[in-house]
């Protein structure tokens, strides 16, 4: 095809955005330049606080009352946007430039029918009749694969699932066939399988409508899948840009390189590969260094970097903002000394003895019905079957990873083990003690041996108390050490967490997300537990911080021989971190076994679908295309037989189109000693599945 459509849709040049604050202003974005052409998807990546979203808002000139474009140009289809008046902008917004952002639930008006919200885009900009608009909206909804569009238009946002909401938002953005679509983390709040479907949709629509897409994300995997070109932002500046292949194959800027090294590759594990966190943290706006922004965290930085601010310059096919770009070869990089060396091999000593054993564990929640009968307590009692028939064991010093999409029951499983929920049935033994009851029925000794690390760094610490007080509390409570040694013990723990004694008197609000998470780990560690349950401890963290926390957890595990249960939705992280993995779907463990066995055939069909949905940070990797249809069914009334049968793409491999899956509970297939798959498909068939991800080139 002749490329005659290369004229740019959006040109951003030397953009600086500042926010006025009390007593001055801060520049959130200092220097961003990029060009997006017709039909091109331009990805912007970077950690939080790098100004990615601000760039997006600046393009729309929607910076709030105190933000403004301080320098630079934003040209959209040849016209300067920064000088447009409000009414001119209004004509562009929603018509030629549309935006989709992170949380679809927040983005839709809760008290307006979806149809009305969509239609007004057309009736306002196009002035067409309501009936005509209705038809076109229905067509658009069909276009974004929304089941039953006419009915959906009559509904309210809360009545459809998150994935569907995002489809509506995307459909709404595309109604007027905009030249530019800005997407700010549109899939971050979605589950991985839903994310994959939405990303497919974006790619398809881009080809069809020639829409230029500006895609903002922190996820390297998503960028690799979605974008044709990438810009990496750091501390308000564009530090590197080029085609996605080029950037991923040969990153030139030390920051880009650092980012790549923080993310576990899917299939990598802790004994053979190492994550290298980027030291330090993103300098906040207003406190940025004079020279190269990245110099304080850069391994290569020299005097010039400290003093002279590098410009974005062309180098081969990419633009890079680094004085030393020519000299740095990222393959030659060696870690500096203070990077934690991960354990090569986990001690095998007492590995065979299970520390926690669960047999047919069940946890149900009663649900309240909404009919009058239920209010009066006459209705039949119904339950959310959050965990059904979970059987597994964990050996001392090992890590059990639990993966699954939201609502699959992984959190409930952990809560049941730790005693925040009562189990409904089954048998759990921890160190020989029965722990089927909740905390109030447990012995203090057991309580002390079971601790937990939480997901959200912002809520893991009580804002009222200092770091020291919070770590000291479990020590005092369980009398781990005599009272006069508590402080020393806390300092000791802080140092284990690489946090230093001067953190003792700090309040949580003075800590960064990663630091809070470390304190959370220290607090869990304070009672010297045998088993620590980690509920998505790194999923709210930026990649570089995530790497640091993972390394720390590994170090602790090695040092104290702690056993871990590790929940996450990021399959690469779980793969990297765990020895054994359980895959859950709708309360049921679908597949369980050693980590390497889970990520290679034979697969459970659900595991296969999950793996094929994972965004892989490698644009050259070939990934099988399996997409699950429909929504996750309700856990109140889970499908009979195999719970996955309503969405299973492999069902038709069974005779009769898999009728048996609808009626009978599947058997456990055991392709190998420790590896079990909960499926009607015989092991032989499962073994014939091809690996989901195969690599071309070096990867």
């Amino acid at each position, binding site marked *: 095809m002749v490329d005659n459509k290369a004229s740019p849709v959006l040109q951003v040049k030397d953009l600086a955005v500042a*926010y006025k604050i009390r007593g001055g202003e801060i520049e959130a974005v200092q220097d961003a330049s990029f060009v997006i052409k017709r039909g091109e998807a331009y990805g912007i990546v970077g950690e*939080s606080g790098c100004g990615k979203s601000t760039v997006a808002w600046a393009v729309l000139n929607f910076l709030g009352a105190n933000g403004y474009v301080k320098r630079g140009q934003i040209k959209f289809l040849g016209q300067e946007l920064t000088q447009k008046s409000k009414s001119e902008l209004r004509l562009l917004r929603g018509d030629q430039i549309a935006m989709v952002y992170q949380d679809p639930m927040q983005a839709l008006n809760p008290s307006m029918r979806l149809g009305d919200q969509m239609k007004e885009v057309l009736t306002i900009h196009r002035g067409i009749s309501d009936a005509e608009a209705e038809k076109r909206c229905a067509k658009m909804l069909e276009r974004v694969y929304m089941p039953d569009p006419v009915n959906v238009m009559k509904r309210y946002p809360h009545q459809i699932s998150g994935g569907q909401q995002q489809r509506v938002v995307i459909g709404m953005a595309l109604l007027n066939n905009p030249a530019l679509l800005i997407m700010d983390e549109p899939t971050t709040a979605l589950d991985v399988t839903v994310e994959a479907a939405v990303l497919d949709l974006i790619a398809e629509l881009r080809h069809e409508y020639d829409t230029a897409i500006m895609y903002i994300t922190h996820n390297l995997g998503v960028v690799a899948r979605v974008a044709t070109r990438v810009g990496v932002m750091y501390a308000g500046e564009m530090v590197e840009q080029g085609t996605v292949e080029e950037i991923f194959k040969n990153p030139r800027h030390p920051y880009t390189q650092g980012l790549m090294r923080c993310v576990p590759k899917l299939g990598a594990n802790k004994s053979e590969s190492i994550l290298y966190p980027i030291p330090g943290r993103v300098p906040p706006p207003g406190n940025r260094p004079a020279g190269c922004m990245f110099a304080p965290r850069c391994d290569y930085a020299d005097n010039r970097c400290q003093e002279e601010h590098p410009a974005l310059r062309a180098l081969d096919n990419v633009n890079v903002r680094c004085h030393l770009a020519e000299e740095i070869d990222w393959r030659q990089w060696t870690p500096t000394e203070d990077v934690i060396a991960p354990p090569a091999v986990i001690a095998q000593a007492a590995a065979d003895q299970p520390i926690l054993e669960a047999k047919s564990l069940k946890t149900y929640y009663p649900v309240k019905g909404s009919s009058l009968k239920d209010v009066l307590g006459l209705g039949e009692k119904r339950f959310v079957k959050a965990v059904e028939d979970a059987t597994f064991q964990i050996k001392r010093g090992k890590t059990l990873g639990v993966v699954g999409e939201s609502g699959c029951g992984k959190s409930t499983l952990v809560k049941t083990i730790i005693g925040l929920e009562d189990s409904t049935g089954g048998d759990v033994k921890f160190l020989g003690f029965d722990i089927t009851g909740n*905390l109030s029925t447990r012995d*203090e000794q057991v309580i002390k041996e079971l601790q937990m690390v939480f997901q959200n760094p912002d809520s*893991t610490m*009580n804002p009222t108390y200092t770091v020291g007080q919070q770590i000291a509390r479990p020590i005092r409570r369980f009398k781990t050490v005599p009272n006069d040694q508590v402080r020393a013990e806390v300092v000791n723990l802080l140092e284990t967490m690489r946090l230093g004694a001067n953190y003792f008197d700090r309040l949580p609000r003075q800590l960064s997300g990663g630091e809070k998470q470390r304190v959370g780990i220290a607090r869990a560690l304070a009672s010297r537990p045998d088993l620590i349950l980690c509920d998505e401890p790194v999923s709210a963290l930026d990649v570089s911080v995530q790497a640091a926390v993972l390394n720390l957890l590994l170090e602790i595990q090695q040092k104290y021989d702690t056993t871990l249960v590790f929940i996450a939705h990021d399959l690469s992280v779980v793969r990297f971190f765990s020895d054994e993995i359980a895959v859950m779907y709708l309360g049921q463990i679908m597949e369980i076994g050693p980590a390497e066995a889970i990520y290679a055939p034979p697969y459970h069909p659900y595991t296969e679908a999950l793996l094929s949905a994972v965004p892989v940070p490698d644009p050259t990797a070939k990934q099988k295309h399996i997409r699950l249809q429909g929504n996750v069914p309700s856990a109140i009334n889970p499908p009979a037989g195999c719970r996955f049968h309503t969405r299973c793409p492999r069902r038709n491999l069974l005779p009769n189109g898999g009728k048996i899956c609808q009626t009978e509970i599947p058997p456990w297939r055991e392709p190998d000693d420790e590896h079990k798959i909960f499926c009607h498909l015989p092991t032989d068939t499962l073994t014939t599945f091809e690996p989901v991800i195969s690599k071309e080139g070096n990867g």
Partner: protein
Amino acid sequence: MEAMQSGLKLAAPPSRLRRMWKNISIIFDSRVGTIGMIMVLFWIVTALVSLFWTPYPPNATDFIQNTPPNIQNLLGTDQLGRDILSRLMQGTQVILLKTRLPWGKAILPGGVAIWGVLGSVTLGAVLGLNAGYRGGWTDQIIMQFLDALIAFPVIVLYLVVIAALGQGDLVVIVAITITGAPGVARLVRSLTLDIKTRDYIRAAETRAETIWYIMFKEILPNARGPLLVDSMLRVGYAIFAIGTLGFLGIGLPPPDPDWGNMVNEARRSIFANPLAVVWPSLAIASLVIGLNLFADGLREELSRYQK
């Protein structure tokens, strides 16, 4: 605004006093709050001064009745020939500084408004914490009880309480406590419902802490910001209510002058001396507005601070 998370890194932990001052001084960032604080401080100072000095004895009927302001009586005199300024000053005491106990001449430091609000905050906090944290039936019962209390029009409740218990400082305190508690409890409950979803509460639960520890040591301290703001507003309401009761003639008993009652008495001679009505009215309004502004400023700054 993802770029806005500014990382405060303090070099060394500041001393306790300094930290406290830092906490207080955030109010100066808000112009509204500062104005409010000045208004409130003005009345507190007036109250303190009145303890030791008023121009004349507040109950002395030494002057010509209903004189307009002059050199001798800066704010004029009332219908009985008493000095309005002195009475106005003295009137602050019962609200802000002292409560007269029914046993002899015993006096409790802290005014009726203060004790009333303290009472409703204490009661409300205990109820709200239990309702919010325990949930289930406890919540249902407490909320039902509070709903019943809230259903009473406040003045009617005051009237009923006073009809039942008679007049007196303690009765007014009880009335303020009862009328205020449901509001506080609702506030604390909603805060508790929010705070109890936080992970640090899970952490405390996994340590098997007692329910009282969790409620009072883990949850309550994190609710103190909104609670402080709310209390501030409530002191305003209480003063408002005391004034109203005084006006209705069922407020704080004599002999101490009561602003509301001053308005009530002066209005009978409103044609002769309109200003006698204006002064105590202004006093009440300014103190209530001051507290409101202070609370508004505080709320604004606290929410900015937490962002």
